Structure formats: C-alpha cells, structure tokens
C-alpha cells in the first residue's frame, strides 16, 4: 500500500510577541492515506465451541505531532485542528 506523506499547517495567534508572551498555535494536520485495521471477534458456547470473525476497517493514518520545545497541547484528542500553547 503506498504511503503518502502527511501535511501540517501551523498558525500563531500573533505576528509579534513581547518576550515571555504566551503563543497560541493552531495546528492543522492531515493524511490522505488510510490504513486497514483488522479486529477479530470470538464467541464461545457452553460446549467450548468457538466461532471467530474478523472485521477489517479503514482508518485515517494516525499522526503524531512534534512541537517546538516548551509547547503543550491544550486541545483534546489527536484529531485536527489541534491547539498548542508555548512561550515567545
């Protein structure tokens, strides 16, 4: 399966800061790839007979953001957009 590079866009809330000012960054990430995740379910009866079924589904390629030193994520979850906070 081809793997296409993800994308990232970062927007800061100001263009100019005083030393020590808080920076609020909005981070938009995306990936055109999807990956197939397979889950296997099993059921057993009282006679220990087991039936298994596999379910496959496509999910968006999970992404990991690496921020500059000192930034912490303030939004919930790993979706997009994300909000991060750092210091000028």
């Amino acid at each position, binding site marked *: 399966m081809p793997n296409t*590079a*993800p*994308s990232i866009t970062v927007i800061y809330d100001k263009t100019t800061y005083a030393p020590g000012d808080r920076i609020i960054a909005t981070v938009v990430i995306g990936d055109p790839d999807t990956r197939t995740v397979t889950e296997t379910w099993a059921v057993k009866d009282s006679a220990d007979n087991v039936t298994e079924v596999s379910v496959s589904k496509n999910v968006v390629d*999970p992404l*990991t953001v690496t921020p500059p030193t000192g930034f912490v994520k303030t939004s919930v979850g790993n979706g997009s957009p994300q909000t991060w906070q750092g210091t000028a």
Partner: protein
Amino acid sequence: MPTHQWAVTDQGGLTATRSVTYAVATPPPTSAGMPPLIGSSSRAGDWDERKAMLEATGGKLEARRIFIGSITDSANTRSLLQSCVSQGLVPVISFQPGAYSWAQIANGAADSAITAMANTVKGVMGTRPIYMTINHEPDKQNDAGKTVGEGGDGADFGRMLARAADLIRAVLPQAKVGPILNGWWFSAQSRGFSDAEIAYWMTPAQLAKFDYVAADHYAALNESEPSLTRIQRHAAWMGRVGFVGSMGIGETNGWTPSDLAGAFGFAKTSERFRGGFVLLWNSTVPNATPTDWKPVHETGLLDDFQEILRAWRG
C-alpha cells in the same frame, strides 16, 4: 526573528515539517527612569519613512505620538497601536471626544464609550506601557478669554479627564493618563495663564488624578520667546502647585538649532520629566508657513535631532 519547527509523522514514518517565524519586540526602556522617553509624531502614512530618517545615524525612537479622531474610532486605534507593538514603541495617544462635550463626558454620558475604547486598547497593548489623554490642546486657538475650550467651558475639562482617567485605569491599570495642554499657557507673555487661570481648568483634586501634565511647546512664532522659556515655566508651575507626577512635551520641533537643543536638553536632565516623555513634532502641515510647523528635514534640523536621539541614553 526566532523560528519554530513543527513536525507531523504518520505510522509509516513519513514526516512533514513546518517552520513558523515570528517577531519578538524588545520593549523600550522603562518609563520610570531618566531620561524620559523620546519619540516623534508623523502623519500615519509617513511614519515608517520618517522613523527611518530620524534613526539613520544610530538613534532609537522610544515613543510614538498618535492622534485618534474620536474615542469611538476603534479601527484606527487598533491599527496604530499594533504598529507601536510591532516596532517596540510606547504609544502616547490622544483621542478627540467625538460627539461628546466635556460636560457630557464629565457627567457620565460617555462612560460606556470610554470603557469600550480602553478595552480596544487592552486588546492590542495588554499590559504594555501607554500614555493616554482625551482632547489634547484643549484651549481654543482664538479664544479672547481664558475660560472656553474646544469641548466647552474650561471648568469641565479637568472634570472630564479625571473621570476618564478612572474609567481607563479600571481596564488598563498600567496606563498613564493626564492632560496635554497648550504650551502658550506657560508663556511669560500676555497670552500666558496665571496659576489661578490654570486652576480654573484643573483643580487640585483633578490634578491628583493625573499621572502627568504635558503640553505641546513651541517657540513664539515671531521668535520672541523660545520653547525652553515656556518649558521652564511649565516646570516651575508644577512646583508651585505641588504636582508630583511627570512632566511631558507632546510636541516640539524647534525654531532654531538652539531652540531644539534647549527643549530636549531640559527634558533630558530635569527631574520633573522622570517617568514622562518628550516628543518631536514631525508631521507635515499643508501650509508652507510658518517654518516652525515643518518637519525637521525641511527646516535643516534633521542632523541636530539625529544627534539628540543618538545620544539620548548615553
């Protein structure tokens, strides 16, 4: 300008990066010290060019004189203050009352508008230092008497600004608020005001509300009285009335090299100016005369001011 590196990586190990460059504005020297902040004015469209011209020999402006046509003009307020933040300049900003008379403001009719203006300023400036006033040069230019001003009776001027000071500081505790008066009030000539005539405009209780009392000081147009004379008399008045706040010069540009040096030299060393400001008038006026109103590069005083600026903090 500092740059931050951001990256995103997928499960397959592919990475994309993004660089973000931003500016950090170094704040000017604290206004609590000496010498006071030195700055200039210009028409808004000329500012970058004029600033570069004044700083061309290594000096650094610290403050910028800003004029806003009405306390309700939030767009220009935001734009010009953001420019100050970007350039690391302390704003000295005056608002015209707009539709309000001094009496109306003093009686509370503009409380919401002034509070809204202060919040507009706060949105840009945060806790950064700023000097503010309403209706600089309050006196009518052609007033035969000494009790009528641009916004009404002179007795309402101090009431107006004292009320505005309380409203502004409730939103901007760091703001310095005070009047920027007509410099001729301190003239030794017949046009000058006595202490009692000044007190008609600002009572002792109202003066106590102000962080500074500034004036726009020019030499007499016939060169009969240099600006330094009026500036010295302004300082002496402060002593007589016991005003312990800062002195300021909102505008001055010098009739001659000695007039320019006299004004800035006094401001640089007088303890009255501690925590205050002295600002060059550098805004072109359409009229060609008098010479006194022209910017320094049109009066042959550019190099004089450049040297004053370069040597300001030693």
